[in-house]
């Protein structure tokens, strides 16, 4: 925009970052303090710095098991949501058929179905399928509930692929499915990454569904683990802070690696 960036802009940006990060830094630094330090001066720096809270968490196997569970659930959910989502979006974006509007409306209406509304019947359904206390019991509903957002984002994306490309492909005797596989998928990679990251983060952070489905500590994902840890060690605030800050690291790394692709994906393929 403006060619010279004024100091005021930097100052505003700096304050903003401070506000956004303050609480996060509080959690991370709090993990380096002892409980008596936290009680006597809640908002001070560690004095001295203690590393015991972090090493305790990192050497126990609870944390790592939960990281494994969360990673597995998030990866499978992401692959499922993006795979099924892009196939359905392609149909909605590039085929003309009766019922297309109804199909789009069906998925769009899904935005209005919070998992909260369906959680009790979902629990019964998962129980009947014998999937209670298993990660697939969490993954399957997550894929289904992730589809509306994915489809709503991807349909305009796929519609934006110019007709000319499709016609050129048709002239070259490329079937519609071939066009999907060879042209649409590569062209929509930014959109796929955007929706994939949204699905991954949603799964990584999901709380209500695992709360109902996973009752066994062995199968806990990180959010359940954090809550269980927080109530189990409710007097040990420092350790809770250490556990909490460690559990947000994977999502943060994942996000910062792909942040460019998120904004880029929403911006569209041509400009990227």
């Amino acid at each position: 925009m403006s060619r010279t960036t004024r100091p005021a802009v930097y100052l505003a940006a700096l304050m903003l970052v401070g506000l956004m990060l303050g609480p996060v830094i509080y959690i991370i630094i709090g993990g380096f303090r002892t409980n008596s330090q936290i009680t006597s001066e809640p908002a001070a720096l560690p004095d001295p710095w203690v590393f015991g809270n972090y090493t305790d968490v990192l050497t126990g196997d609870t944390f790592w098991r939960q990281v494994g569970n969360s990673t597995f659930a998030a990866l499978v959910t992401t692959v499922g949501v993006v795979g099924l989502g892009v196939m359905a979006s392609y149909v909605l974006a590039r085929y003309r058929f009766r019922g297309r509007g109804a199909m789009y409306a069906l998925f769009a209406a899904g935005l209005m179905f919070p998992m909260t509304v369906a959680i009790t019947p979902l629990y019964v359904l998962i129980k009947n399928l014998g999937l209670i206390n298993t990660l697939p019991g969490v993954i399957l509903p997550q894929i289904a509930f992730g589809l509306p957002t994915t489809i709503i984002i991807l349909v305009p994306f796929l519609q934006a692929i110019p007709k000319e490309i499709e016609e050129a492909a048709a002239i070259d005797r490329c079937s519609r499915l071939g066009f999907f596989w060879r042209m649409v998928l590569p062209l929509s990679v930014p959109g796929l990454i955007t929706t994939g990251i949204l699905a991954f983060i949603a799964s990584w952070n999901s709380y209500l569904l695992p709360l109902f489905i996973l009752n066994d500590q062995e199968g806990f994902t990180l959010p359940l683990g954090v809550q269980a840890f927080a109530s189990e060690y409710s007097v040990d605030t420092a350790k809770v802070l250490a556990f909490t800050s460690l559990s947000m690291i994977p999502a943060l790394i994942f996000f910062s690696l792909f942040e460019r692709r998120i904004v880029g994906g929403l911006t569209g393929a041509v400009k990227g």
Partner: protein
Amino acid sequence: MAVTEDAPVHRARLGGGVRTPPPVRPRRRGIGWAQRLEIAALSGPAILMFVGFVIFPVLMAAYYGFYRWKGFGPPTDFVGLDNYVTILKDTAFHEALWHNGQIVVLSIVLQGPIALGLALLLNHRMRGQSVIRVLIFVPYVISEVIVGTAWALMLQTNGAVNDILRTIGLGGLTEDWLANPKIAIWTLMLILTWKYVGFAVILFLAGMQNIPSELTEAAAVDGASYWQTQRRIMLPLLGPTIRIWAFLSIIGALQLFDLVYIIWGQYVASTAGTSTMATYMVTEGRNAGNYGYGNAVAVVLFVISMIIALVYQRFVLRRDTEGALTSGR
């Protein structure tokens, strides 16, 4: 979403030279078996998953809502509309509904302008821009459980927030942020804004980058100031993005559960004045063992969301989704 306004840009750029009308394709008239098979194969799995794990459970919720049911075995004690009558008469539900209403309005009023300002700020070319962009989304990326746990610790009466206020000489401002019913809802709004403003910024930024820079450059050449450009060009062109964001925000606010439940727990939320329809549902339904009643609350919550969403789509989103949601007719 932001990409909706992307389409014209794409076409204008890629198809700019070739504006000849596309040749009429014979397959338009009727679709053959091969194509039907493709449609079924591509969309079938998604539809099956969606119907099985979203539509079917929601319908079951409506069914269970007519029963007094403790969650064991099939429901047998049919009570008709009794559950619904109880809900609509319960003052605790009225309060929850009122809180949801406040959260819907305040979320848009608070987060909209803030996010717009931040997106304008981050749309500047400046050093450290990409780092700042990552950092601003940090609260959005970390889970509700972590956000709730951390804020609950910081906002205790003897927590970090009050300690900082005392240290900088504003001891008079210390409050019982979580329990005082007069301010608890504002505390909640503060946390919600902190957590979700990043999402609005991400959408607005994407929308802004979709606006061809030729437009803003042309305005600059014509002598428009920075603010004039933003107001006359950016804002109007960002309209569709803002309206979609507001829609998502409204739906999210109506269904708010995690943060309230984690910070205020199941009992305190109603006395602190932060209970929502969803926390009411879990507290009165699952936690009280009244699964039938909980499902009836779910249905009420759904109907309210649905009505608001339809009204919003009818009157606000109509222009943006024309040809998307309505093309079936």
